[in-house]
């Protein structure tokens, strides 16, 4: 057992991190045999993830006793980073960064404000930052999926979209099936989370609360609130993102701009 080799908790933690990273790299190496080349990006992502989470841990510690506006700055920074990540996934979408930033800010932001107002989250730095980061992270995943799905669907069905326009449809009506598909596809992970809550998945927050002495039912309800918030944040973000991306896919004269073909 690692515990016997590394009695110091920090050394133990690092050893564990090294072990799971090796496991992840081993999987990436295995994938190479199927000609899926992800070793480099997995290695970089692992190293980045470790450094980032350690950094935010130290920042969180520093902020613990700091003023509340620090939380605001941290959250805005997270929204920016999340928008960049999501936009990178949807890099073929024109204006992806602006759309992702606006969508995450409005989606995750409004849900966070609502839950603070409802008293579900304490307006303290130590609550706002971790809860906000969960909302932003799920919004980021959803918005990246939604934008890329919408783009690839519209490009693949450009002749359908233009046929609809040619028959006198509004851009909204012409793009409607693809807005709907993108919205649904991007929310599937969040819906599955809700559905499997407690059966496949016992989230860490609840486990931690039970371990530290909160009555299980109370911990469970709180966990449900958080998961439902995450769902709302993703859904709202996708709604804003798909509306914005649809608006950007057409010109003022109602011409399809998002095309992958030979009519530039």
């Amino acid at each position, binding site marked *: 057992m690692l515990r016997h080799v590394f009695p110091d908790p920090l050394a133990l933690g690092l050893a564990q991190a090294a072990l799971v990273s090796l496991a992840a790299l081993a999987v990436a190496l295995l994938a190479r045999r199927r000609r899926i080349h992800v070793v480099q990006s997995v290695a970089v992502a692992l190293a980045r993830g470790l450094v980032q989470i350690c950094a935010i841990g130290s920042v969180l510690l520093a902020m613990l006793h700091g003023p509340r506006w620090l939380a605001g700055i941290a959250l805005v920074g997270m929204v920016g980073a999340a928008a960049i990540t999501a936009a990178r996934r949807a890099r073929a979408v024109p204006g992806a960064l602006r759309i992702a930033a606006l969508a995450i800010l409005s989606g995750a932001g409004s849900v966070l404000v609502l839950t603070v107002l409802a008293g579900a989250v304490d307006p303290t730095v130590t609550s706002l930052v971790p809860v906000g980061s969960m909302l932003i992270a799920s919004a980021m995943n959803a918005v990246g999926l939604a934008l890329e799905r919408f783009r690839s669907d519209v490009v693949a069905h450009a*002749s359908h979209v233009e*046929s609809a326009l*040619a028959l*006198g449809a509004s851009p909204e009506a012409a793009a409607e099936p693809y807005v709907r598909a993108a919205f649904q596809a991007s929310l599937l992970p969040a819906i599955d989370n809700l559905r499997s809550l407690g059966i496949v998945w016992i989230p860490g927050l609840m486990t931690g609360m039970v371990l530290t002495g909160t009555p299980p039912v109370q911990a469970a309800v709180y966990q449900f609130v958080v998961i439902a918030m995450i769902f709302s944040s993703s859904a709202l973000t996708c709604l804003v993102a798909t509306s914005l991306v649809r608006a950007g896919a057409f010109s003022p004269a109602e011409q399809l701009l998002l095309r992958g073909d030979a*009519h530039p």
Partner: protein
Amino acid sequence: MAGRRIVDDVSFPVEEGEVLALVGPSGAGKSSLLRLLDRLDEPTSGTVFLSGVDYRTIPPRDLRRSVGMVMQAAALFPGTVADNVRFGPHQHGRDLPDAQVYELLKQVGLAGFASRPADRLSGGEAQRVNVARALANEPQVLLLDEPTSALDEGSKLGVEELIAAIARDRSLTCVIVTHDMAQAARIATRALVMEAGRMRRIGPVREVLHAEARLP
């Protein structure tokens, strides 16, 4: 957009009730010109007049109801054949009665197809539905982009005859893109020859094709 001019310095009238064929080699800009006529692309300069009205002053949806378009690929929507025929009128809140759907389908030779799923049609049938759904908007002008080039030989002539009959019976103004000179001769009254984005010749179809045949 920036760069190459795909269609340049092209100016021509289309008379009411005539069938004008846009002919020329592939890449000559025929389809691009047709798309400009429906304002599916924006002209970088110049414009189109529809019954004397600059089409940039007409709301795009109204314009596209007046100027119907049949594209090369049928691109039917999911649902039934009738759903497809109803699509255009439905966009401005009109629900086409069954009798009218039947009448349109009869005109394109598909009487009794109304409740068929649109994704289970042959290429020729799908293109006929494509024509019917464009006619459902009662357009003043019908644009057709290589409407038979994606079809097999068997259904090609049938669709071509259908288009000729519709143009004749409705005295519908048509602009049809084709790379097939013989087809142009069969359907059109006049022909416009495109080459490298420019207009090379326009005139009565027989004269134009005759002149083209004598070119090296």
